[in-house]
């Protein structure tokens, strides 16, 4: 029973990185922009966050630096695709490759650096409840902030006027433009916000989750976060659930191995990806889900003159 509680705790932790990045990309895509550069932004943010945490000793400043790094890269991407109308997919790929190379270069002197040893966090009063405490209330504050962020984003998108405008820009930029909304600036804001969240996710990875810097340490999580947005049919709560599901399957493979379950470990390693594909296929087959939620102008450039 206790080990099951710990499995839940590990799942929440593993899912948080994916959830933060996934929510950021969801903001992008709701505004009609696909940013395939998530992996690169997360890598640059990971080294920025790690370096800041090393020099200042503050994890939270590390998160701030990560967010800033992600936002800056996203802003560069935004200028390219929104104002210069370059191809979003090609620019995103370029950003991803640039991020991988640049982070490796910037991190040369940080591979041997270390952060102070990480302790466990406890939610006062709740952490000692049997089962529930170890399962849910001994996580890093960022895990809870992510849940709050999901709720806030859902409220923003569906209950606030600004969220409505953002969605309108993603559905039909022409209409939004005709109504007098500054489509490009709104898209830019969404891209920067999304980049900042990817940055926080990258910093969480290098400052809290695996507190070290090594080249390429994001190891594909950016791509998984991209898949998550489609997986979740562009709904914040589903992004969070999808992230936990993915985190859970990832952790489960190690638990099953540790318990001597007679399944080849290679097969277990494949499970998270298999789960993603199965759900993607299931969702894609349901045309109504896709049509109801996919931003209609996703990935299309907008020319205000046309």
């Amino acid at each position, binding site marked *: 029973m206790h080990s099951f509680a710990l499995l839940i705790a590990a799942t929440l932790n593993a899912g948080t990185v994916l959830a933060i990045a996934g929510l950021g990309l969801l903001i992008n895509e709701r505004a009609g922009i*696909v940013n395939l550069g998530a992996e690169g932004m997360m890598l640059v943010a990971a080294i920025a966050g790690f370096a800041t945490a090393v020099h200042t000793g503050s994890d939270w400043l590390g998160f701030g630096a990560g967010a800033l790094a992600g936002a800056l890269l996203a802003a560069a991407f935004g200028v390219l695709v929104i104002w210069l109308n370059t191809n979003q997919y090609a620019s995103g790929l370029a950003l991803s490759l640039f991020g991988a190379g640049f982070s490796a270069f910037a991190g040369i002197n940080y591979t041997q650096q270390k952060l102070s040893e990480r302790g466990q966090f406890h939610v006062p009063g709740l952490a000692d409840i049997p089962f529930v405490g170890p399962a849910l209330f001994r996580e890093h504050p960022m895990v809870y902030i992510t849940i709050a962020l999901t709720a806030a984003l859902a409220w923003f998108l569906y209950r606030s006027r600004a969220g409505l405008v953002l969605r309108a820009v993603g559905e039909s930029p022409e209409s939004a433009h005709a109504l007098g909304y500054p489509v490009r600036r709104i898209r830019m804001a969404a891209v920067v916000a999304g980049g900042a969240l990817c940055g926080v996710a990258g910093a969480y990875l290098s400052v809290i989750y695996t507190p070290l810097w090594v080249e390429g340490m994001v190891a594909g999580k950016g791509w998984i976060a991209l898949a998550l947005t489609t997986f979740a049919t562009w709904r914040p709560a589903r992004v969070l659930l999808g992230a936990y599901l993915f985190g859970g399957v990832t952790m489960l493979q190690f638990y099953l191995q540790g318990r001597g379950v007679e399944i080849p470990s290679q097969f277990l390693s494949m499970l998270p990806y298999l789960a993603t594909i199965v759900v993607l296929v299931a969702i894609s087959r349901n045309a109504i889900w896709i049509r109801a939620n996919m931003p209609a102008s996703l990935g299309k450039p907008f020319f205000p003159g046309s």
Partner: protein
Amino acid sequence: MTLSSKRALLRLAGWSTLAATAALVGCGKNEEAAPAPQAQASAASAPAPKPEPLKIAFAYVGPVGDGGWTFAHDNARKALQAHFGDKIQTSFVEKVPEGADAERVFRDMVSQGNKLIFGTTFGYMEPMLKVAADNPNVKFEHATGYKRAANMNTYDSRTYEGAYMAGVVAGAMTKTKTLGIVGSIPIPEVIRNIDSFTLGAQSVNPHVKVRVVWVNDWFNPPKETEAAQSLINGGADVLFQNTDSSAVLQTAAKNKKYAFGWDSDMSAYAPEAHLASSVINWAPYYIQTTQDVLDGKWVGNKASWWGVKEGAIDLVSISDKVPAETKAKIDQIKAGLKDGSFSIWKGPIVSNAGKEELKKDEVADDKFLGGINFYVKGVEGKVPGGK
């Protein structure tokens, strides 16, 4: 509307595939390192007609900053350069992907005038063999492989000796009598390390249990973290890993458990959790090989497997938390390995399926060690893909 959104989705899918491919290619890109600064030094010392320095090149599979496998090789390269000074000129190319790209890199090295070339990962075997066949006057040295030629040798280190000594420390330190190992890829070398670690632990703590979790990767810190966490959650209080980063050690630190450094000294990453580091020192081999080449004594078709005896393997930075008697035992083991009076793989050794693999007092030869594909008694579960 339907059609266009469907098309958009298809396009998205197409681009994602392309993205994934590009990402893979991107990961494999090879950044040529700047040639070592010694190039200038030798050019400047023109007046005296010194003999041309021997040019030596290294191909690494990882970045020199991985803190583990490649880091250890590069430290040895630096030691080699320092040892011979201006008699040699070393250079390296890092992040050379295993396979066809490696061949191009080796041909480049040859064309730049390198006369001795080291390749430091298993996957360079075939490309190196091909390039060696075309360049009989260049000497090749391949780490961890088994194919040789008249101008190509293989070399490796007995990492299992370090694993055994780490096991002795782990056996002395565990309270739950449960040890956890994060395994990389289930090949004989890694299984031999798992078994040796277990034998070491059992030598001081006969009823200790060992659990293994495979990540199927040499270097994937987030995955290593997750695997380590699952072992700790399952009751293991001392961890060991055959992966290349310090993630397992740091996860142990976070949970107030113990772990080891692997390949390089990792004590600085988590001083509280670090019990000892099993390190590989490639410098003695590199120095010996280079000396042979300089003296004209180098011969091909040779396999070298160096361990504690040759100074290639050591257990270093043993924590103050480790009892003095355990430290004394480690010193005994090292002395025994050096003078040949002690063998780790000496019977009786029984597999965890109950089969007697080595009879009483039978000592394993290198052929036996090279093909180990079973867990010894005390390790839980089955070797992936094994019987």
